[in-house]
Every structure is written in C-alpha cells, then in structure tokens.
C-alpha cells in the first residue's frame, strides 16, 4: 500500500494545492470584501441618523449609502483637544486618503484618550439642519460592542443611535442592535444638564425613571446594557473639547 514517503508526498501536494486555491480566492475577492466592510460601517454610521434621511433607511441600497456619504456628510478626524487633524498628517499615519471612514477604530480605542484619533461625521439634512455623528466603543458581555451616536446641532440631544456587537447572545445582548424599539428610546435623551455639566446616560433596570437621561434596560442583558452605558459615558467625554469649540 502506502509507505511513509508516499504518504508525506500526498499530504504535501494536497496541502499546497489547497493553500494555493484559497490564496487565489482570497486575493480575487479581497476588493469585494473591503468594499463590503466599508459599506457596512458606512451604513451603520448612517443608521444613527436613519430618521433624518429623505429615503426609507430599511430599504436603502449600496449606491444610496455611498451617495449620501459623498453629498451630505462631511467627515473629519479630531483629537481629544478638539483640534481637527489635517488630511496630510493622517495619511502619514497610514489612514487612507486621510478620511475618518478609513480610521482603524479598533486600534484607536486601545490608545489612551489623549492620543486617540476620533472620527466625526457632520450630516447635513436636506432642510439644512446639522447632525453630528460620533463613535463609541466598549465592552459587552462576550466581546466588543460599538455604536454611532448622532447628536442634534445643540450637541446635547441625541438624534439617533446605532449599535453593533461582535459576539453578544442573540435574543439577549444582541438586542442592542436588533431591537429597534430599544434603540428608539435613545432619541431625545440629553447628555448634558442645562448648566453644561456632563451626566451622560443611564441604562436602568426596571424601567427608565429620569426622562432626560434614562433608558430602559433589556431584561436578560444586564452586562451588555451596562456596557452600552459605560461606553457612551466614557467615550463621548473625549469629544467634549470639540463640542465646546463648535458651540462657540
């Protein structure tokens, strides 16, 4: 039958064929993969202002996403002092085209806050109103969770949010993304007290109490809910300086 050298030869030939095949496929589809990934995160960004779009967000096409991004969104990258980083500097740092959409947000989240690069998307509605979409990232129960928070032009009232997660339990933690009614609760909540003090949001078990800052928690998803709260309250503070500048 087969001796050892024949077996080895068979395995070697087989693995090289397989490796070659997969490498070819991976390379061939790479541009499509990148395009899909980029589109997916663009769509998630737009989801935060879904109610402000002229078209129905649930049936939005890829072309429409790209078009809105080109026409109605001005993207910039800032640091925690509120300074807009020029495109050339970003390109030197390896951010493609110096655009916020090409920032490596996972990497940025690991940096200490004062070295972090933060994306800001300024969305102009067709009636001229401006919305600012900021990005937050934190921890759920199993793995990372992240979200796009859209603020109205007063930089206090939340106009909409969209969350996503890496590995939360379907039906429980994953509801932060899937449950539209839960996400809807965030609309109209305020981040700051009237005197300008930052209070953030609370995801409260047993029902929202404070109509300005409370959101009802999802039963069975306490840790994910706490993660959302923590993520919003810590990450938005980094944008504080930028908001202050905009208000002036």
């Amino acid at each position, binding site marked *: 039958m087969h001796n050892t050298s024949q077996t080895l030869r068979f395995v070697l030939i087989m693995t090289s064929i*397989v490796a070659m095949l*997969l490498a070819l*496929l*991976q390379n061939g*589809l790479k541009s*499509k993969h990148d395009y899909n990934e980029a589109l997916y995160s663009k769509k998630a960004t737009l989801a935060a202002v879904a109610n402000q779009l002229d078209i129905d967000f649930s049936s939005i096409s890829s072309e429409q996403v790209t078009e809105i991004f080109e026409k109605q969104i001005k993207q910039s990258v800032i640091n925690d002092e509120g300074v807009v980083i020029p495109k050339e500097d970003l390109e030197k740092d390896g951010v493609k085209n110096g655009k916020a959409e090409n920032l490596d947000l996972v990497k940025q989240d690991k940096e200490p806050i004062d070295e972090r690069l933060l994306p800001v998307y300024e969305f102009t509605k067709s009636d001229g109103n401006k919305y600012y979409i900021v990005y937050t990232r934190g921890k759920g129960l199993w793995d990372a969770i992240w979200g796009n928070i859209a603020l109205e032009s007063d930089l206090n009232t939340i106009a909409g949010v969209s969350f996503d997660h890496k590995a939360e339990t379907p*039906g429980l933690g994953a509801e932060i993304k899937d449950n539209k009614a839960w996400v809807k609760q965030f609309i109209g909540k305020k981040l700051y007290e009237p005197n300008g003090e930052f209070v953030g949001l609370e995801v409260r078990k047993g029902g929202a109490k404070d109509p300005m800052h409370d959101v009802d928690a999802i039963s069975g998803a306490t840790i994910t809910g706490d993660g959302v709260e923590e993520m919003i309250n810590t990450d938005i503070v980094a944008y504080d300086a930028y908001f202050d500048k905009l208000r002036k």
Partner: protein
Amino acid sequence: MADTAVVEKKQGLTFGKKERKLLTDPLSENNPITVQVLGICSALAVTTGMKNALVMAIAVVFVCIFANVITSSIRKMIPKSVRMIVQLIIIATLVTVVELVLKAYAFESYKQLSVFIGLIITNCIVMGRLEAFAMANRPYESALDGLGNGIGYGIILLIVAFVREFFGKGEIFGAKILGATPDYWLNTSESSIMGWYQPNNLMVLFPSAMFVIAVIIWAHRAWKPQLVDVS
C-alpha cells in the same frame, strides 16, 4: 440503525431505485439529525432564526456534496493512515470557500453567521458521510448521498428554527406574526395579531433547541416505529 448500504459497482450514471434511495433515505429513514443524531451542535447554534437556518442549510448542502465528490474521486489515492486528516482538509477548504464567497456576495448573512459557518468544519454529518460513504463509493453516488444528507439536515434545521423563531420572537423570517408590535418595548397596548402573546424568551436560548429536537425525534419514531432502537 438503517445505514445506507454500499452501492454495488456499476457503470454509467443511471438514476434508478438505488439512487433514489440514496437521495430520499436521509430525508426520513436515515435522517442525520433525528436518526443518526449527528450535527446537533450546529442545530442548537443557528436555529434562533429561519433566515440563518436557511443560509446554514444551503452552506451544508454545498459542503456535503462537494466534500463527498472530492473525497470520492481521490479515495484510491488517499493513504489510509492519514485519511481522516485529508478529509478534514477537504472540508475545511470548502468551508473557507463558503465563508469567502458569503463575505463577498451575502455580507449581511456572513455577519450574522460568521462563527457558525466555520463550525461546519466540526459538523459530524459531513465527516461522517465522507468516512462512511464517499471513501467506498463513486463520485456520482457520493454526490447524491451528500445532497440527500445535506437536505435531510436542512429540513430539520428549518423545522427547529421555525418553532424557535415563531414562539421565541413571534416572527417568521424576521416578519412579525405573533405578539405585540415591534413597539412593544414602549407601547404595550398596541398590538398586532394575537397581541396578548408574550414571546417566550426560553425558545431563543439554546436549551430550547434540545427540547425541540428531542420532540422531533420522538415524533419521528412514533411515526416510524422501525427506527426505535430496541437494544
């Protein structure tokens, strides 16, 4: 257990009684989930929604057919001592192909299924068919066997997913059928059909898949008593 018999060597690609049996046997009499009790792990994992179950079923059918055909066509070359590893490589390759293709052409499904697609590699049905059937039969019969087993698996997956999604979320393929409207979180008074129904969260959790599969196995054996293992 009624295992599929080794098909006698024949020339030509005829579709007779034996071939039909290869295709239909795994649907009921020799169903991979309810009779062979294989592939339970993924049946637990992807059956929270019918859409995911359907994509998973299609992926498994694809992997089953091609893994069977490839293994069968090189079965005489595979050294006996490494045959399991070779089978594993074939399965892993096909699963990676499925993953890459989904990522390029069905990105939403890929996002939802990503982990579970990889888990097809560990799906015992695929490996079981390679070892039990494809290693001893021609590619043509192996393809039929793969198709039959893939569909047999997919049917049970869809039934389980239907029960879990319907009672767990009140939805079918993501469309609200039962229970209060999507606003139920905020507005419990407004309701759709059977608005009083409170979605049973237990059905969404993994243990429920065990109950549902067990009930299906029970019903299947009550319907076909010859499947009952008397030993």
